């Protein structure tokens, strides 16, 4: 197995000043990350968890304060130029000037990789066709839709045929249709180009849909790394929710569920509990409820989501972490602005 990314103990601190007080924020706090050739890895975490900072270190844009990383076989610090030549990077903001023609920007970008004009023009036009940007070669990005602009950013990242592609929050801010469309193109990166992909996201469904393996980062540390299936299996069981018709029987229903779930939660006339392999256990449960004459309004069985995984791992739901993390992101942004 060839490793495309091999990071050990990456650390990056941002220094901010608030008034006279100097503060250090350890945005990335000892990240180890291995990505094999041909893998699609989803880097998942709330805002401010350190996803982008890690990515910027791996793409040579930021020096690690501690630790080492090899990307495409080259050291990110001592062989940064070789790393740059081997990777494509699509940042959150993209990289196409809104007031320049799309085709010109793509060609200039490709030529900075040392490719000839004819070569980048041919390749650029192929990519425009593949990413459904036909006819937009001379259009300015400011006159494009969000989805078109994002696909153009991906063209920029692919113009020099990199074997490793970094995508930072590729679908943030897109409408659901454009998102679904972009997912197809991202999936194509591997299936049609054989590229290795590392994408960051704070959407669970995105990581679930695209990635072979999910790496969860929280507060600058990796808290889990596995397939979506295995991660979900860590959450003890599926959620079974019973809605009881007669509220006086709620205690009895809770007792029945407790026998399977161990721990149950009662809310109104609903009883919830986590049950291992619920698909097999539920028929027995229903029979038992029927026998004791407890009538149900409804029953729901929910497979665990990555949100449950995040909750199990960190004690917070991803949404709560997002809100708490937005403050940290602001700090990160402010730190960026300090001329050091």
């Amino acid at each position, binding site marked *: 197995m060839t490793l495309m990314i091999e990071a050990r103990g990456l650390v990056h601190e941002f220094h901010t000043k608030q008034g006279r007080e100097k503060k250090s924020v350890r945005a990335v706090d000892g990240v180890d990350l291995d990505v094999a050739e041909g893998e699609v890895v989803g880097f998942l975490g709330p805002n401010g968890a350190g996803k982008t900072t890690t990515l910027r270190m791996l793409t040579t844009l930021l020096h690690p304060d501690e630790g080492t990383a090899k990307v495409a076989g080259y050291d990110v610090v001592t062989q940064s130029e070789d790393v740059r030549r081997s990777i494509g990077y699509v940042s959150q903001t993209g*990289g196409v000037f809104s007031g320049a023609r799309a085709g010109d920007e793509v060609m200039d970008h490709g030529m900075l990789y040392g490719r000839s004009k004819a070569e980048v023009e041919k390749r650029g036009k192929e990519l425009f066709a593949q990413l459904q940007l036909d006819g937009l070669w001379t259009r300015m990005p400011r006159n494009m839709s969000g989805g078109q602009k994002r696909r153009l950013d991906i063209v920029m990242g692919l113009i020099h045929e990199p074997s490793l592609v970094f995508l930072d929050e590729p679908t943030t801010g897109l409408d659901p249709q454009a998102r679904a469309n972009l997912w197809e193109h991202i999936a194509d990166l591997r299936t049609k180009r054989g590229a290795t992909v590392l994408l960051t996201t704070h959407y669970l469904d995105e990581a679930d849909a695209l990635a072979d393996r999910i790496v969860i980062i929280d507060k600058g540390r990796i808290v889990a790394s596995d397939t979506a299936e295995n991660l979900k299996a860590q959450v003890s069981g599926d959620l079974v929710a019973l809605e009881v018709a007669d509220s006086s029987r709620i205690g009895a229903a809770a007792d029945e569920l407790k026998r399977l779930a161990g721990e149950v939660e009662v809310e109104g006339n609903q009883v919830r509990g986590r049950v291992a392999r619920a698909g097999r256990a539920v028929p027995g449960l229903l029979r038992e409820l029927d026998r004791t004459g407890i009538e149900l309004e409804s029953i729901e069985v929910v497979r665990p989501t990555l949100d449950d995984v995040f909750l199990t791992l960190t004690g917070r739901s991803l949404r709560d972490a997002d809100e708490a993390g937005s403050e940290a992101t602001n700090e990160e942004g402010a730190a960026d602005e300090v001329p050091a």
Partner: protein
Amino acid sequence: MRFLRESFIVFRRQLRMNLRNPAWVIIGMLQPVLYLLLFGPLLKPLVKQFGADNAYTFFVPGLLVQLGIFGAFFAGFSLIGEWREGVIEAERVTPASRTALLVGRLWRDVLQLFVQALILVLLGWALGMNASFRGAVFGIALTLVVGAACAAASNALGLATKSEDVMAPVINMVMMPVLLLSGILLPMTIGPDWLLNASDFMPFRHIVDAVRSSFGDDFGGSEIFWGTGWALLLCALAVWWGTATFRKESA
């Protein structure tokens, strides 16, 4: 070779964007013309008191340096816009030389300055400036070096501050003493000694003196030496600073 190719790609891209927005180019060209037509005549009756005999031979070199300094100081603003849209980051992730990313932009600024300088000098001659050809050529060359220095510094400042709101007051703060102590509009020699001594510490005054001597075809004095020295030194420092900001991780 590779460096030239990379900086040329950046230069061509910048030029293309400038030409797409020709309003700024036209304003840039118009500025020296307005100065010459509307301020030049005011100097005419005063110029004898400076010990000079031709208002335009005195004024054109000053205007030239002013153009070189102040026009170029604003170059960094467009860089902030590019940074905001992720263009700088996209360029920095390519294997291109960091110096080429800066120098390509400087070429655009120097080219624009060169065209402005030509208009200014030709118009000066038309209005009766009494300067030698080789003096004008050397004066323009020196101006281009100063302009490159200021544009590089402005790009560095833009990328370091990343905010027009921070950059504008900084530039204003720098511009005022430069304008007042460099003898661009009026010669420092007509002022009191303390002011003249203060202006000795202003590198741009020596550059203005050198361009003036050059236009007056006076290559014998020390002015040319000091002015050229300062111009080259400032340019080297500014390009070094600019490259450092392009290389730096937080940019």
